[in-house]
């Protein structure tokens, strides 16, 4: 196959349109239908997840292209040329594959326009995810060419979109509950992100990447052979790669898709300011460093002024997966929430104040500690009393009633029954100044080590209402 024929085929087929269609629809979905992405890994994973939509589109594009000769009524004419079918279809298969792969990569431009920090950390784990996605879309186009050849009808392409969408997007979700996808879901062209770990930086394991690579390459080979085959016997033989691929990788698939996602150590390397006191963030949250510096240093100053043995540096900490073990936090470090934790209940940033002020409150929450996982309660039933105590410690350190209660007349509880931060603060202020200091310092100690004990009692001397 010469380059000249490929060029003609690129001009005369729908290849360019297919590339544009994939890039435009996928790019639009990446750009418009999702909130801004935190990092690169998230963009490429969402792009793979969206293959529930783009994969059927590519399949239909192939089927549409395969119908060309019938549509132009030159099927018999072309059939009489003295060349084998497999030789004849090479240029169009190459042109369509090229178009699909280019369209898939161009799609990323939509994500590029929607990422918070484009120059930020690019995980090496993102490269195989993009490459395997491109391979999957090439396989879809070839499979579509094969189906379009076997079922030459103007209805094949649109019905393939609907059927592919029902099969990829609707049924897998209906049959298995979220986060419990079995490992066989890695056989599907789309890839679910690590839902369990929230936005904790993760990469897909090499084993999972390799099995997907092998399987999707086998599917693409089957599609191409099926398209190029002229006889029934060859068509049956075309199934061999797909079957062999499935047999080869089924035993090595993990039990659940979630197991194939591993933490990304490279993303957690700290980037610190030169200026003292040091403020650090993980590499993946580099863009948050500037905003963190001012409130971070203010929080360090407040702690140094009011408590003995204060921390000396601020370190941005990502929200990790639920079920993390309780570990003792180092005394010289003030943890700062970074990543998508912003604005979730309990992070304390969902308030009507400036971002810097909100960050200060979040930093000093629990006297500058992270909440202990075994005390937080569940997302459905959070331990309000615990959060109240942590918030009151921050209010004592800052010397103000928290902003969300400042407008309330006379410290009225917004959620009655649990009391308000103002009430806890008043109880604390009723004690002698030296004892207030000792109690908050003790509170910080138990929070840091996640020791047992009623937090409100430690703080004020009287146990909580519940």
């Amino acid at each position, binding site marked *: 196959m010469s380059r000249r024929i490929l060029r003609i085929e690129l001009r005369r087929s729908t290849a360019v349109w297919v590339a544009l269609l994939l890039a435009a*629809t996928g790019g*639009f*979905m990446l750009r418009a*239908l999702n909130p801004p992405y935190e990092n690169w890994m998230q963009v490429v994973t969402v792009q793979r997840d*969206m293959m529930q*939509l783009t994969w*059927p*589109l590519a399949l*239909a594009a192939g089927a549409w292209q395969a119908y060309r000769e019938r*549509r132009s009524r030159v099927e018999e004419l072309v059939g009489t040329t003295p060349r084998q079918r497999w030789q004849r279809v090479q240029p169009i298969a190459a042109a369509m594959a090229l178009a699909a792969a280019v369209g898939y990569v161009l799609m990323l431009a939509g994500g590029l326009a929607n990422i918070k920090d484009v120059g930020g950390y690019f995980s090496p784990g993102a490269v195989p995810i993009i490459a395997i996605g491109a391979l999957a879309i090439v396989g879809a186009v070839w499979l579509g060419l094969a189906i379009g050849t076997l079922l030459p*009808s*103007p*209805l094949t*392409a*649109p*019905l393939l*979109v*609907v*059927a592919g*969408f*029902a099969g990829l*997007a*609707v*049924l897998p*979700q*209906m049959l298995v509950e979220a986060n419990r996808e079995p490992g066989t879901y890695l056989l599907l062209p789309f890839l679910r992100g690590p839902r369990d770990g929230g936005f904790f930086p993760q990469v897909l394991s090499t084993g999972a990447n390799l099995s997907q690579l092998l399987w999707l390459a086998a599917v693409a080979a089957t599609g191409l052979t099926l398209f190029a085959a002229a006889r029934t016997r060859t068509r049956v033989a075309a199934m061999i790669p797909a079957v062999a691929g499935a047999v080869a990788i089924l035993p090595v698939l993990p039990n659940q898709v979630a197991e194939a996602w591993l933490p990304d150590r490279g993303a957690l390397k700290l980037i610190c300011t030169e200026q003292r006191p040091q403020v650090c963030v993980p590499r993946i949250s580099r863009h948050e460093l500037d905003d963190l510096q001012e409130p971070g240093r203010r929080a360090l100053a407040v702690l140094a002024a009011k408590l003995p043995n204060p921390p000396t540096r601020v370190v941005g900490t990502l929200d990790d997966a639920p079920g993390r073990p309780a570990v003792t936090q180092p005394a010289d470090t003030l943890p700062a929430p970074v990543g998508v934790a912003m604005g979730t209940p309990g992070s304390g940033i969902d308030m009507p104040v400036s971002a810097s002020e909100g960050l200060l409150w979040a930093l000093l929450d629990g006297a500058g500690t992270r909440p202990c996982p075994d005390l937080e309660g569940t997302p459905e039933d959070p331990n309000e009393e615990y959060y109240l105590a942590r918030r009151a410690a921050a209010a004592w350190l800052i010397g103000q009633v928290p902003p969300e209660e400042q407008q309330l007349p006379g410290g009225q509880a917004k959620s009655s029954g649990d009391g308000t931060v103002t009430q806890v603060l008043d109880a604390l202020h009723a004690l002698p100044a030296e004892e207030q200091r000792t109690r908050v310092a003790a509170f910080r100690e138990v929070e840091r080590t996640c020791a047992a004990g009623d937090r409100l009692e430690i703080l004020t001397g009287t146990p909580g209402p519940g």
Partner: protein
Amino acid sequence: MRPLTRYLRSRSVPAGIAVLLGCAVCLWALGLAVDNRDGRSLLVLLATVAGVVVIGPGLAGPDHDLDRVAAIAWSPRRALHLVVAAAIVVGLLGATAQIGDPMSGMALIARNTAGLAGLVAVGAVTLGAARATLLPILWAVLVMQVTPPMGTPPDRPVYKEMLTWLAQPIGSTPATVTAVLLGVVGTLAYALFGSRR
């Protein structure tokens, strides 16, 4: 009777009806397998898209010039063809969706079919009957991400509600307006101009 039979055959209606029946059977079978409420109504939406897509290729005959020179008033016949085809889709899929535990309301199926059929007709006028299905398919695919259970459709501003009319619940006025508008514009355009060659 002969002219009608020939007309129907020239528009490949028998094959279309067969495919439509296939869609209805698939919908019925999937309705038995899936018990999630949102999932069931999403399947009905997909079946509606498939059903309307079947109308597309039949919007033009095999020989454009032959149709054009015939001494037949095509405009009312084209409008009738589209309306009857859409009515068959609504009737068949609507009836299927009501079997057993209802999967989706009749009004919703009628609204979506009306809008999608109008879109197919617009596609036939602008792109030709063979490519007519591109418009409803693309619109449906782009809207799918905000369709329950995959997502939630926006409830304001009005233009977003109109763009996602396929995903909106039946109570949404902008969605109904969009569907009716598409249906009317599509039917009028197709009746007046016919399919592009």
